[in-house]
């Protein structure tokens, strides 16, 4: 707008007509003040977050805790994925028998404890959304861009993890293990970028400590200054709410509540407290939970068919088939082994049946052979068969079980015959076995 307010003189006949600015120039001239105003507005909005809970120390402490939690979840998740979908080079060791059980427990319980940490961290850094300008260069743009997979991916992992352990599959239009696995890699990549950008700042702010809490701008000073209430700001301005240490305490306390109310699904001494666990280790037929029932597997008729036979074939000298009576007449072995599920629950039980190495000896299988056990389920179903590597196949505690906790197998636990082996994912403890193939 011109500074002159008087009427403009008419141009003389020799004066050239004023050149109209181009469209791009006009757009730029219009947009420039708008962008500047938007920048000022967002800066002013960001500056209104005066709570000490949005500061660097809180963000750094939560960031370190999240880094530790995500690393634990990533490592245990990697082991879990490889155990469930084993490539040729990966084999879980046979002993200790509880290795996979501990791995799954750590993965799921740590993931659940991460929920309050992540939400608190996102709350702490939320005002930074309103900083202006959002990026100041290409390197910073790449670092900022990685926050989309970092934040979204972290939320994705926790959300899909929780709905998966709750067996609520409809919000997931993908195969959970694969999507969760690759999303974890996505988050780890973004986390590496984030650590590179923030490690120095975070280390410095943690080393300096929380420092004094700034007084809230809008709050009157408390008459009880010098005697702050529980967890309130250390300068006595109670109306400003939790102090930074109080906030951190509340978040870790909440994580503790979640752990206490869930961990008992795999940590037996905490079982009575596990009221928010999707499983209880002693609720189920034969005091053992069932992940897939006979009805779901479609074997309710075939599993109780009197013509049932176990066929052992493949790379062995004496392929044979056995009736249920034949199997019951063979030497039996007992072993206390856990069922450890990918959803994080686990339960120990006493199993009794035929030791797999003994059976392999009967059919003349070569030593060191691996086997594939095949279920009565339709072979189109996932996990309808599974491979037992040579180390597990040679271990005397790897059983083709006929009994559980002193009684014949319940139909839902794999009657007439199921695999139970040390240190193996639950989905690979194949139930309703009808064929053993020596590989």
């Amino acid at each position, binding site marked *: 707008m011109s500074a002159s307010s008087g009427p403009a003189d008419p141009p003389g006949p020799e004066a050239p007509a004023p050149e109209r600015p181009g469209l791009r120039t006009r757009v730029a001239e219009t947009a420039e003040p708008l962008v500047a105003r938007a920048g000022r507005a967002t800066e002013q909005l960001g500056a209104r977050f005066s709570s000490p809970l949005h500061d660097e120390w809180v963000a750094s402490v939560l960031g370190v805790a999240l880094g530790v939690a995500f690393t634990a979840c990533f490592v245990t998740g990697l082991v879990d994925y490889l155990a469930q979908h084993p490539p040729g080079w990966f084999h879980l060791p046979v002993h200790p028998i509880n290795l996979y059980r501990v791995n799954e427990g750590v993965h799921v319980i740590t993931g659940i404890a991460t929920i309050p940490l992540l*939400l608190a961290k996102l709350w702490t850094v939320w005002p930074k959304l309103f900083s202006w300008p959002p990026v100041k260069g290409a*390197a910073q743009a790449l670092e900022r861009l990685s926050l989309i997979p970092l934040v979204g991916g972290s939320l994705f992992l926790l959300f899909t993890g929780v709905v998966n352990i709750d067996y609520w599959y409809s919000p997931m239009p993908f195969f959970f293990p694969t999507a969760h696995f690759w999303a974890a890699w996505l988050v780890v990549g973004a986390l590496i970028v984030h650590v590179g950008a923030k490690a120095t700042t975070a280390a410095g702010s943690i080393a300096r400590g929380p420092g004094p809490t700034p007084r809230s701008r809008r*709050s009157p000073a408390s008459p009880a200054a010098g005697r702050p209430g529980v*967890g309130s700001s250390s300068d006595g301005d109670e109306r400003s709410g939790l102090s930074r240490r109080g906030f951190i305490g509340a978040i870790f306390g909440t994580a503790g509540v979640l752990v206490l109310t869930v961990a008992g699904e795999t940590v037996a001494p905490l079982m009575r407290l596990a009221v928010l666990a999707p499983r209880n280790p002693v*609720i189920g037929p034969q005091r053992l939970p069932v992940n897939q029932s006979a009805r779901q597997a479609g074997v309710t008729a075939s599993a109780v068919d009197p013509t049932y036979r176990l066929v052992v074939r493949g790379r062995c000298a004496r392929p044979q088939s056995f009736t249920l009576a034949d199997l019951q007449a063979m030497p039996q072995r007992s072993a206390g082994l856990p069922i450890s599920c990918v959803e994080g629950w686990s339960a120990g039980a006493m199993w009794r049946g035929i030791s797999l190495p003994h059976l392999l000896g009967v059919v003349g299988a070569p030593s060191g052979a691996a086997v594939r056990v095949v279920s009565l389920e339709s072979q189109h179903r996932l996990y309808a068969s599974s491979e037992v590597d040579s180390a597990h196949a040679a271990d005397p505690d790897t059983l083709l079980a006929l009994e559980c906790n002193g009684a014949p197998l319940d139909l839902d636990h794999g009657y007439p015959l199921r695999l139970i082996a040390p240190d193996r994912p639950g989905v690979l403890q194949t139930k309703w076995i009808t064929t053993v193939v020596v590989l």
Partner: protein
Amino acid sequence: MSTAPEKGAAEPGEHGPLFWVFLLVGWAVIIFAIHGMVADRANPPGVWKLLVGLNIVNDALVAPVLVVVAVLVRRLVPGWLVAPLDVGLIASAVVTLYAYPLVGSWGKSAAAGYSRLPFDYAHSLLMVLGAIWFACALLALWSWSRKRPRPA
């Protein structure tokens, strides 16, 4: 999502070699993950829709609601009660969020049997919330007792 540099962070152009190493390695892993997602047919559009959607829900819905709640608590509640109330609200919100699918029982199935989601989770949640608010009431009592003027 945060998009701005933190106070004390290096300015653009001041990044050290470590920043660049982490940036390159991190983005290599991100690209590896995206490739894996596509190669494994993990339904990348479905994954990204949920991933970005959760990001938006947090930034545009959850965080503003929390701001409103925080402001209301500070304006309406006596000073000595703010911190215990904050603790109770934080713990209750997170525990409820976690327990929501359990209370909804959407994963229950007659075919799967009674061992799946075996509890009355609405009752369980109320018990846990009761314990949380009992602890917060004790904290509030302690906070109130510290606020009272001491006799001379």
